[in-house]
């Protein structure tokens, strides 16, 4: 450090009233002009700061504030507590306890009417309470017909009555229709709350007065004899295809996939998104048996069920329409209860009823004229006759340990957090101009159950989709990263080198150039340095940083473009001007701009403050050389961002922007210039953390199958990641005083994320095999916390026990994220197929996804009404409909569908477009 620097540091430490005492320093200052200037500046700043301290609030402001506070103080009631509340509660509780102890031995409680004066009132009070509970659950209006008694009833009778009522109410709650389902007169619910319609068994007749109408608009009663066949399903005896396969082939003919009845001349079944699992995705046996008036004893499992067995969803069957089977489906989303009643002709009085089908549909009841009995069937359907449920198939594949190949669990892996994909932003913009509803609103990343960190920039969450390990288990390990919502603040002074590639003769150039320069001028702040270098035509460094003002810009522009821009080519204009010298190549222009940046590169400014912005509509020649130059600059802290004016060079500019650790943006029109410049200049202020190094160390014996959607980097790629990380590290150390701590590789899987933005969430999923219970993984994350200007380290470990444990919401969340990744990949494949013109293949992919979603939702009660899954499913349904329609011959429409699918696949994994 030179003596001047040393002295200037001491000068900088001086406050307003302090002066330098050291004679040597004073002597030096007298002789050194630089230090004199420095001291003078320091004094002026200190003086200004002191002046600022004398600023005072207006008296009116102070007065109004004070008055408001005093009036508030007066308005606040002064609660003088005579007794401490805790003491009062304890005293009351003690009193109650003592009273009970005294009264209980003498059985005197009955003498005290705790509810109300009359038994009827007691009953009323109980009902009121129950009504309140029901209203909370279902929010459905109800009517009651109560048997009222004028006689005085004894306490015991009241108790029984209340008990019976309570029981009844419970059933009623269970069968409450969902919100939006209106009461329907004429149908009743029996005392047990399940049976609907007039064919309720006789044993319930005496309680009919106490029934409540809960039939909903979703109820469907279909007389099969009049039902119009919509789909032909072959009999099992004549068609060896599985039921699901047949349905799968025909599913495209279904109108919407929602609740519907499909029948053919010999069979009928219902297809619903809620209970389709029980129908078209399970092992359903069917043989028409018109002679039989009861449920088929030989071909349905219902006949094999015994008393006290519980049937599962596989036993929801379909019946011969010639027996005039009526089929009713009632579903109640609100209380998670579904009931299905299948009734044959009244004279047969065979009533099959299934109640309280939970989303798993594991429990049900069957009711017949012989009485109620619950049934259970644990037998497995023979493989030859089993239709594989997509959800179960998917889950089985996810848990399969057969023929697995393992990867090394060390080294660098590709970063999957890429929020600033310019192509996707372009797609998003183009889709917004489409005729359909805004797709970007229809798709979103799954909301993760991660809290925003309070006292750091990032937090980490570690979960798996398994809750226990009792044997070698394949599972997904999820590493979740959540950024703080806070932003780092305002943008700081920047050093910008603009490079305009003018070798192409694009008519939009003048307007776009002007727009960009205007935007920069508008956004320019004190301390900003902006220079302009021209490539392709003579000129070189056209505007120096100190000349970047409106006057010199106007002059510079007039040397390049005249008002007859559209007619006159750049060459002729240049030829008429006195612009001297040889035209620079792009490489030379970039080198010139870099040299200019280095002159003004302030080591104390923040990372990303020195940036080259390349503006081009041309194909880039000699890209590998330029890439090396750009990469070297990036390591030195000078990043490169690119702005494309044309479609043909986007890939090349993206490559350069990646090498330069910058952004690639696309300028479609001059009107977009301000947005691009603002985004570019403010990009550094949105990042809350930099140089994030994620290390995932798997426990001994745990094997890695893959990191989902990522890949292992080769030696060259790893070296680039290391270089970039160390460059960030050095720069942040130099600028913000965050100690440099990078340089060594860690053990385990390493992922480096250059920057993480405020409010973002990201999950990294690993497919692993765990041999036994115990430690699974240890994850640590080191990063540069830009909110608190420090090195931060977060660490989490995952241990799983061997005790039986049901997967909870966290495990389900991991499964849902894996499914979302599967969804995104499927959609991406479909997009490629559509673009290739293979719409049928795309349709098959989407149909498979739709089926999977339907069955997955039925797999777990928490997923049954999951809004995100329903949203995705709805989107699939729309695309299936689109692809099914014959009117997609138009190339533009095909491209639109492909683009939107591609966008959806990307958007599913990214929080938002940056």
């Amino acid at each position, binding site marked *: 450090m030179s003596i001047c620097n040393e002295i200037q540091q001491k000068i900088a430490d001086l406050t307003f009233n302090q002066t330098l005492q050291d004679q040597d320093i004073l002597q030096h200052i007298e002789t050194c002009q630089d230090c004199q200037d*420095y001291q003078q500046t320091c004094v002026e700043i200190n003086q200004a700061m002191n002046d*600022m301290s004398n600023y005072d609030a207006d008296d009116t402001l102070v007065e109004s*504030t*004070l008055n408001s506070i005093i009036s508030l103080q007066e308005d606040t009631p002064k609660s003088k507590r005579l007794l401490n509340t805790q003491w009062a509660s304890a005293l009351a509780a003690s009193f109650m306890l003592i009273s009970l102890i005294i009264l209980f031995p003498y059985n005197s409680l009955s003498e005290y009417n705790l509810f109300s004066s009359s038994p009827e009132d007691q009953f009323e009070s109980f009902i009121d309470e129950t009504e309140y509970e029901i209203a909370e659950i279902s929010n459905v209006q109800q009517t009651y017909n109560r048997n009222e008694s004028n006689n005085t009833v004894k306490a015991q009778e009241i108790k029984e009555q209340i008990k019976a009522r309570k029981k009844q109410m419970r059933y009623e709650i269970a069968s409450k229709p969902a919100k939006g389902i209106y009461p329907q007169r004429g149908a009743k619910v029996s005392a047990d709350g399940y049976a609907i319609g007039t064919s309720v068994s006789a044993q319930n007749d005496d309680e009919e007065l106490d029934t409540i109408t809960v039939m909903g608009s979703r109820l469907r009663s279909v007389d099969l004899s009049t039902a119009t066949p919509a789909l032909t399903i072959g009999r099992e005896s004549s068609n060896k295809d599985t039921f699901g396969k047949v349905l799968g082939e025909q599913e495209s003919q279904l109108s919407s996939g929602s609740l519907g009845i499909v029948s053919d001349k010999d069979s009928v079944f219902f297809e619903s998104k809620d209970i389709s699992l029980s129908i078209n995705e399970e092992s359903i046996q069917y043989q028409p048996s018109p002679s039989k008036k009861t449920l088929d004893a030989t071909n349905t499992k219902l006949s094999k069920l015994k008393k006290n067995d519980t049937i599962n969803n596989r036993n929801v069957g379909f019946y011969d329409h010639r027996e005039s089977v009526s089929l009713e489906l009632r579903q109640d989303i609100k209380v998670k209860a579904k009931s299905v009643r299948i009734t044959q002709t009244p004279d047969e009085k065979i009533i099959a009823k299934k109640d309280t089908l939970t989303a798993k549909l594991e429990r049900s009841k069957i009711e017949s004229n012989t009485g109620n009995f619950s049934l259970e069937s644990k037998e497995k359907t023979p493989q030859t006759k089993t239709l594989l449920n997509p959800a179960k198939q998917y889950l089985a594949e996810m848990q399969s340990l057969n023929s697995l190949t393992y990867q090394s669990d060390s080294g660098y892996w590709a970063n999957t957090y890429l929020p600033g994909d310019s192509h996707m932003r372009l797609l998003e913009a183009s889709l917004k*101009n489409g005729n359909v509803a805004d797709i970007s609103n229809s798709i979103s990343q799954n909301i993760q159950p991660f809290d925003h960190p309070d006292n750091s920039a990032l937090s980490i969450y570690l979960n798996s989709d398994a809750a226990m390990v009792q044997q070698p288990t394949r599972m997904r390990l999820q590493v979740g990263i959540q950024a703080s919502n806070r*932003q780092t*603040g305002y943008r700081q002074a920047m050093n910008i080198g603009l490079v305009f590639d003018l070798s192409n003769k694009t008519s939009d150039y003048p307007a776009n150039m002007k727009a960009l320069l205007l935007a920069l001028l508008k956004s320019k702040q004190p301390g900003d340095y902006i220079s302009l270098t021209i490539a392709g035509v003579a000129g070189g460094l056209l505007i120096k940083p100190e000349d970047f003002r409106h006057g010199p810009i106007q002059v510079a522009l007039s040397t390049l473009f005249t008002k007859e821009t559209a007619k006159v080519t750049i060459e002729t204009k240049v030829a008429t001007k006195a612009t001297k010298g040889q035209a620079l190549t792009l490489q030379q222009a970039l080198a010139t701009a870099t040299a200019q940046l280095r002159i003004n590169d302030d080591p104390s400014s923040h990372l990303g403050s020195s940036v080259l912005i390349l503006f081009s509509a041309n194909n880039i020649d000699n890209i590998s050389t330029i890439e090396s130059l750009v990469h070297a600059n990036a390591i030195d802290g000078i990043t490169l961002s690119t702005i494309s004016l044309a479609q043909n060079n986007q890939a090349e500019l993206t490559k350069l922007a990646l090498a330069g650790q910058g952004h690639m943006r696309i300028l479609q*029109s*001059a009107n977009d210039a301000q947005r691009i410049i603002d985004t570019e200049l403010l990009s550094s*202020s949105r990042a809350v953390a930099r140089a994030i190094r994620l290390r995932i160390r798997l426990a001994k014996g745990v094997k890695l199958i893959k990191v989902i959607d990522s890949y292992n980097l080769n030696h060259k790629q790893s070296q680039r990641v290391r270089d970039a990380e160390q460059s960030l590290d050095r720069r942040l150390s130099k600028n913000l005083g965050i100690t440099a701590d990078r340089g060594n590789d860690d053990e385990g899987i390493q992922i480096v994320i250059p920057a993480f933005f405020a409010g973002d969430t990201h999950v990294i999923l690993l497919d692993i095999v765990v041999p036994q219970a115990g430690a699974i993984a240890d994850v640590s994350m080191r990063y540069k916390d830009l909110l608190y200007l420090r090195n931060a380290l977060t660490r989490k470990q995952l241990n799983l026990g061997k005790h039986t444990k049901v997967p909870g919401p966290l495990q389900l969340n991991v499964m849902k994220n894996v499914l979302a990744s599967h969804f995104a990949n499927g959609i991406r494949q479909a997009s490629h197929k559509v673009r290739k013109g293979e719409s049928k293949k795309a349709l098959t992919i989407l149909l498979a996804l739709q089926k999977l979603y339907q069955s997955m939702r039925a797999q777990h009660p928490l997923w049954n009404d999951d809004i995100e899954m329903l949203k995705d499913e709805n989107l699939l349904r729309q695309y299936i409909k689109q692809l099914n329609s014959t009117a997609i011959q138009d190339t533009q429409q095909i491209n639109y569908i492909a683009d939107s699918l591609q966008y959806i696949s990307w958007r599913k994994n990214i929080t938002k477009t940056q």
Partner: protein
Amino acid sequence: MKSDVDIGTEERNWLAQHLSGDKQAFAKLMQAYRKPVYSYLLRCGLDKNSRDDLFQDIFFKIHKSAKSYKKSNRLSPWIFTIAINTVRNHIRDQKPAQNHLSLYIDEVVELQLVDQSPTPEKITQSQHMIQWLQQAMLNLPQAQCDALNLTIIKGMKLTDAAKILNLPLSTIKTHVRRARQNLILSYKISNNDTISSRSIS
């Protein structure tokens, strides 16, 4: 005349007196802290409307949180902890405006280059300096700005600032030094800019 120690001891009772219904107590507090708080807000680079709003906000918060103040602590750091948090919340809420992407617009508007910045001649030198300082402090990293801002306050010790910002004392010192160096540097740069612009015009 009361010494600083007496004032320091006396001010610790103001909030308790205010809670017990003494109307004068809060007036005394406001009188003592109106200038430090307001000038602090000024140094944060806030415009007048925001300053006035936040000024009221800070004193309302002081009133609301009066119960949590402990007499054993000094009042000034407690008040500035409230102030700094209020300003931070305000800054956080002022997120950069998101411009909508509007592509495929065929019409290109003819653009005029206009210099919208005020000429230096129109403002006095001292006002110019203060305005520049406000802007320059905005451009400082938040941590440096906070540290410098707090240490300027009369009577605020570095240890108090460290406590308020929840940072080690050495870090505060570093932030203050870096903030000063950055300010001096950017002042020199802006001066050079002004000189060069004058020479061009």
